[in-house]
C-alpha cells in the first residue's frame, strides 16, 4: 500500500494567448488546465496505486478556480483533494512551498509526486522546496519510475561498473556510485530513470521521496464519464492559508514570509515583420545565406 500525494497547479491552457491588463494577466474567457507536467505526475500516482494499492491525494495551492483542476484530478482517479486557498498568499515560491509543506507533512506520504515545472511561472522551484522542508530526497525529471521492495532493490544487478556501448549505440558511463548498500535502510525504494538534458540517468532512492515528472513518463488518461460522476462525491477540502500558521498571515511568519516580489509585468518585445525570400529553391538557399551574413550578421 502506498500513500501518494500529488502536487498540482492549475495553469492557462498552453494554446491560450496571454493578454496583459493593468491588474495582471487577463483571465477573462481563458481556458484553464492541470499543468501538463502535473498531469504526468497524477497519472504516475494512479499507476503506482493500481500496482501497489493505496491512496492518491491531490493537493493544489491556488485561487477558487483551482477547484476545477482538483475536481478533474478526482474524476481522473484521485481519491481525495485538498486546496490551499492561495488567494491571500503572497505570490512567491518560498511562501507557497511553506504552505504546501504544512499541508503535506501530516499526510505522511510514501511518495510525493509533482511536475518538473509549471508552464506558467516556469520556475520549477516549489516542489523541490517542499521536499527540502520535509527532509525528503528527490529524483527529478523522471521518465520512468518503479517502486521496489527492500528485497527487490537488493536484488538489482551491480551498478554502473561497465563503460561501453549501449543497445542504441549510445555510450554508457561508469559514473555509478553503487546500489542499495550505499543508501539508508528503507522499506521501499524507487528506481527512477531521469532525463538530464537528453541523457538518461538511472538512480535508486529510498522512499519516502519526491519524484518530479518529465514529459514522456507516461500517457495521461482522460476523465471518464463514470469518473466524473464519482468525483462529485469524493472529498475536496479547502484549507484557509491562515489556518496553517495558527491564524497568522504568511507574511508575518518567519519561515513563510515572501522572499521575492513581482515589480512589473510586461509583454515580450514585438518582432519586426520578416521578409519572404523569393525565387527557385536554389536561389532561395543562396539568398538566405547571403541575408544571414550581410543583414543578420550571422555565420
Amino acid at each position, binding site marked *: 500500500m502506498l500513500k501518494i500525494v500529488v502536487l498540482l497547479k492549475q495553469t492557462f491552457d*498552453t*494554446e491560450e*494567448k*496571454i493578454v496583459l491588463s493593468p491588474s495582471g494577466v487577463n483571465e477573462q474567457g481563458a481556458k484553464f488546465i492541470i499543468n501538463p507536467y502535473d498531469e504526468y505526475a497524477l497519472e504516475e500516482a494512479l499507476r503506482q496505486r493500481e500496482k501497489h494499492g493505496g491512496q492518491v491525494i491531490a493537493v493544489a495551492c491556488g485561487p477558487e478556480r483551482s477547484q476545477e483542476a482538483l475536481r478533474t484530478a478526482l474524476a481522473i482517479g484521485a481519491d481525495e483533494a485538498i486546496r490551499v486557498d492561495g488567494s491571500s498568499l503572497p505570490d512567491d*515560491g*518560498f511562501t507557497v*512551498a511553506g504552505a504546501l509543506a504544512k499541508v503535506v507533512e501530516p499526510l505522511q506520504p510514501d511518495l510525493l509526486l509533482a511536475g518538473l515545472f509549471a*508552464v506558467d511561472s*516556469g*520556475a*520549477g*522551484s*516549489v516542489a*523541490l*522546496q517542499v521536499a*527540502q522542508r520535509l527532509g525528503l*530526497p*528527490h529524483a527529478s*525529471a523522471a*521518465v520512468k519510475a518503479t517502486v521496489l521492495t527492500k528485497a527487490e532493490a537488493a536484488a538489482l544487478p551491480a*551498478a*554502473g561498473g561497465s563503460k561501453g556501448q*549501449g543497445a542504441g549505440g*549510445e*555510450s554508457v*558511463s561508469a*559514473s*555509478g*556510485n553503487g546500489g542499495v548498500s*550505499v543508501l*539508508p535502510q528503507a522499506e521501499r525504494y524507487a528506481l527512477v530513470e531521469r532525463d*538530464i*538534458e*537528453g*541523457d*538518461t*540517468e*538511472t*538512480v*535508486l532512492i529510498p522512499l519516502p*521521496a519526491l519524484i518530479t515528472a518529465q*514529459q514522456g513518463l507516461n500517457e495521461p488518461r482522460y476523465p471518464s464519464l463514470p469518473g466524473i460522476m464519482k468525483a462529485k462525491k469524493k472529498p475536496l477540502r479547502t484549507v484557509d492559508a491562515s489556518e496553517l500558521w495558527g491564524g497568522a498571515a504568511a507574511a508575518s511568519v518567519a519561515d513563510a*514570509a515572501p*522572499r*521575492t*516580489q*513581482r*515589480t512589473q*509585468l*510586461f509583454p*515580450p518585445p514585438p518582432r519586426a515583420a*520578416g*521578409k*519572404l525570400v523569393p525565387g527557385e529553391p536554389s536561389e*532561395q538557399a543562396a539568398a*538566405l545565406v547571403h*541575408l544571414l551574413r550581410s543583414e*543578420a550578421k*550571422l*555565420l
Partner: protein
Amino acid sequence: MSKTILVFAESRDGALRRVAFEALGAARQLAGKDGAVHAVLACSGGAADEAAALLARGADVVHIADDPALRAFAPEAYLAALGAAMAAVRPDALLLGHTAMGRELAPRVAAAHGAGHIADVTAIEPSADGGDVGFIRPLYAGKAFERRSFLPGHPWVITVRPNNLPAAEPVDAAERKGTVQALPFTVPALYTAVRSLVRRTGGKLDLAEADVVVSGGRGVRSAAGFEPLQALAGVLGGAVGASRGACDAGYCDYALQIGQTGKVVTPQLYIACGISGAIQHLAGMSQSRVIVAINKDPDAPIFGVADYGIVGDLFEVVPLLTAELQRAQA
C-alpha cells in the same frame, strides 16, 4: 553598494559550461566594483584547469570541493558542498545556471537557507539611485515577462538561463589576483545511488546552450526525415530540436521538444523546418535572435515571427541550404 556573490560553476565532462561564465559575469555585475566574487567547483580528482579558467575571467576566490562522492550526481553531496561554501563565504547571493543540475540544487539551497529563489533569469537591471535590482524572467515560456526583485533581509538564490547574459570578460594576466582554496565539507548520508548514465546525446550540445537550433515539425514526416536537418545543424555547429507535433507523431524523442511544454531556447539563429507555429511552440522559440522559417504553407503562423521566410518544400530547400553553407565555409 558592494556585495559578496557566490557562483556555482558547473562543469560537464571535465570542462566548465559556458553558463558558468555567464553566471560569473552576472556575479561581477551584482557584486559591484568593490564587491567580491567567489566561485565553487565540485569535482572528484582535481579541477585545476577549471579553477584557472575562472580566475582568468575575474573570480576573486575559487573554492574547490573535491571528493569521490561528487563523481556521480548525488544531489545530497552537491548540496553539502554548496552548503559548506555558503557557510564559508556568507554570500549576499548565490548564482547557478538554470540547467538540469542548477534547477535541482537552487530550490533546495533556497529552502535550506531561508533564501528567495528567482529562477530562469534572462536579464538583470542594476539598481538605480538606491532602488532594487530587477531580475527579468519569462512567464508562460515567453508569452509575457516579469521583473522580480528580492525583499530585504534574506540571501538571494538566482538561476540564470543559458545563452542570455554576457559572459565574464577575460582579465589581463597582470591584473589577476584571485586565489584558489580547498573547500572542506562533510559528505552526508547519501540518498541517491546513481546506477548508470546513458549518453544518448553523444556529448552533443544541449539545446538550451546551442547558438544555432534547427528544428523540425510534422512536415518532416518521419524519423528519417530529420536527417537533412541534422546535416544542416552539423554544418552550422548547432543542435536539432522538434515541435510537439513531431514528438507526438513519434518522429523523435521528447527530449528534443521545444515549446511551452518542453524546452525554451534562445539561440542566435533558429531555423524552423516544416513547423506550422502553434502558440505553444512559438512560446518556446520566439525570443531567438534571428528566426528562419521553411514551410510549404504560406499562411503558416510561423512566418509571423520569422525574420526570413522560405515558402517551399523543406526536403528540397534544406539540403540546398546545407550545400550553400558548405560552399561558403570552404
